[in-house]
């Protein structure tokens, strides 16, 4: 309860939550308001927003309804963002936990690999993965998760390093618990809060990565993705700039919502920082 209260007292967090609800509502209402395929031909191409009451956000160069694509795109963005985040957290937690818990050569090897991933620009690695494995939505989501785990691994490792010598862990060892049980049942729940908070950052960057990939025409072309829409509008930027502008605002709102909520959670969970921001 006090967590909720602390969260509610910060105006940015509340704004973030409201924006998040708007995006969620858009994702949920997509198939009710626009039951048809959002990528189908809906009307005359390049109608300005408001020119035709049927298309509140206008139509794009292929005559597709922008409003329908925005709503369905919310679903795609949230889906890709959350699945990629889960993948990234899963890999990061696994690697960070083993490195921090076992130490020694396991730590050395795992941290070298983490360093390699951090030295390689994530977006370049993403390009390579897409070049090798293709660009359907499942592959792209998985690839985004696979390039964004190193920070989570470092965070998890740091938590495990401080927790592994605590008394409760020593007690578990004395009780004869196996390593797996100590790592996942005993230490991990204690290490989880800062990692969960960090998930907001991972999700925000996942959504941005997907949109950049889609803008370059390297994501799945058969889904209504906001990045795809901005890319489609690039050709008519000089006269019909709204085609690119509208989906960009949608991305901005979503990423802003995710990071504000994450920041709010962080402040609510870290009483040490209270009153500072």
């Amino acid at each position, binding site marked *: 309860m006090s967590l909720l209260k602390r969260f509610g007292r910060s105006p*940015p967090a509340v704004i973030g939550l409201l924006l998040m609800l708007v995006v969620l509502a858009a994702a949920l209402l997509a198939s009710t308001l626009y039951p048809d395929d959002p990528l189908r031909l809906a009307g005359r191409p390049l109608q300005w927003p408001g020119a035709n009451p049927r298309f509140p956000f206008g139509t794009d160069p292929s005559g597709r309804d922008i409003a329908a694509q925005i709503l369905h795109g919310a679903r795609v963005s949230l889906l890709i963002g959350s699945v990629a985040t889960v993948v990234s957290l899963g890999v990061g937690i696994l690697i960070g936990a083993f490195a921090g818990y076992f130490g020694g050569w396991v730590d050395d090897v795992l941290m*070298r*690999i983490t*360093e*390699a991933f*951090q*030295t*390689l*620009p*994530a*977006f*370049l*690695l993403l*390009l*390579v*993965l*897409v*070049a*090798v*494995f293709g660009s359907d939505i499942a592959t792209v989501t998985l690839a985004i998760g696979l390039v964004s785990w190193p920070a989570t691994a470092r965070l998890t490792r740091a938590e495990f390093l401080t927790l592994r010598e605590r008394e409760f862990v020593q007690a578990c060892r004395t009780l004869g618990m196996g390593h797996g049980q100590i790592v996942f049942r005993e230490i991990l729940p204690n290490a989880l809060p800062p990692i969960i908070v960090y998930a907001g950052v991972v999700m*925000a960057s996942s959504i*941005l990565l997907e*949109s*950049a990939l889609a*803008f*370059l025409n*390297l994501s799945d072309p058969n889904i209504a993705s906001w*990045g795809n829409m*901005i890319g489609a*509008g*690039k050709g008519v*930027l*000089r006269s019909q*700039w709204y085609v*690119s*502008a509208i989906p*960009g605002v949608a*991305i*901005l709102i979503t*990423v*802003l919502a995710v*990071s*504000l909520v994450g920041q709010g959670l962080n402040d609510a969970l870290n009483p040490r920082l209270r009153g*500072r*921001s």
Partner: protein
Amino acid sequence: MRILLLAGRRLLASVPTLLIILVGLFLLLQLAPGDTVDALMAQMGGGDPAQMEKLRSFYGLDAPVAVQLGRYLLRLIRFDLGFSAIYGQPVATVIAERLPVTLLLMVSALCLSFAGGTALGVLAARRVNRWPDTLISTLGLIFYATPSFWLGLMGVVVFAVKLGWLPANGFEQIGAGYTGVQRAGDIALHFVLPTATLTLIFLAIYLRVMRAAMLEVMTLDFIRTARAKGVGETGVVIRHALRNALLPAVTLVGLQAGTLLGGSVVVESVFALPGLGRLAYESVVQRDLNMLLGIVFVSALLVITVNFCVDVLYAKLDPRIATGR
């Protein structure tokens, strides 16, 4: 001297990292459908199998994967990145042609965002929870959430299409025949929008870190000591607080080096700049895997170089690090 020794040791430690990257990527690219010969043949409109076999043995693609990997690494030591069948030139030559554009974009965006982020972060921290802080922090959050390519496109709409102040894309005015200073000015003009785009995105990150670090440092004892001995407010902020608060931001430069390079891939595509990022994108589309491997290698070297500079700078800012704690 100790600084260089320390940074040198860190540099040596990055050799295994580089090796992991290269071996990992080489093996990863073996999984790609089709090889260089397939891509080449597709470009020439097909060819007979006998000729393809001949080309494969010419490029050494008929050897086992382990042998190919060994050969590749041996050639890398001599900085020979191989041959791009698509461009018909050595990979190193093509990359060297494209590198200056990316370097110019990266370095100018890095300097501007670091300087701007530091200044705005300090300003926000000095006026914490009052309107300048709220304004700066809000703008920072919004730019942090903005996709770089979209910001670039909107910049084009406003400054190139509507106002007509800046060129929309390209590296220079083609066919204008500018030379010397005039050409440099023309190129600089073409770089304003791309640099501004990349700068604004990264400025937001430095701004947030700088603000938090300043707030933290200003509560420490030595600040009170400085005030007590009568140092003016500007002196306290600049001479005492800033130097200490800079450390997290400098660390971030190293951590963000890869992201900055990734960001320039996208920004170069928006503005059709002939840089490394654009080249990476083209090699993905054209399946020029040799080129892609070369670009990744050079990018990793770039990131390692930036981190080396950060290490040296770090020791300069905090002498305790150089003397080995």
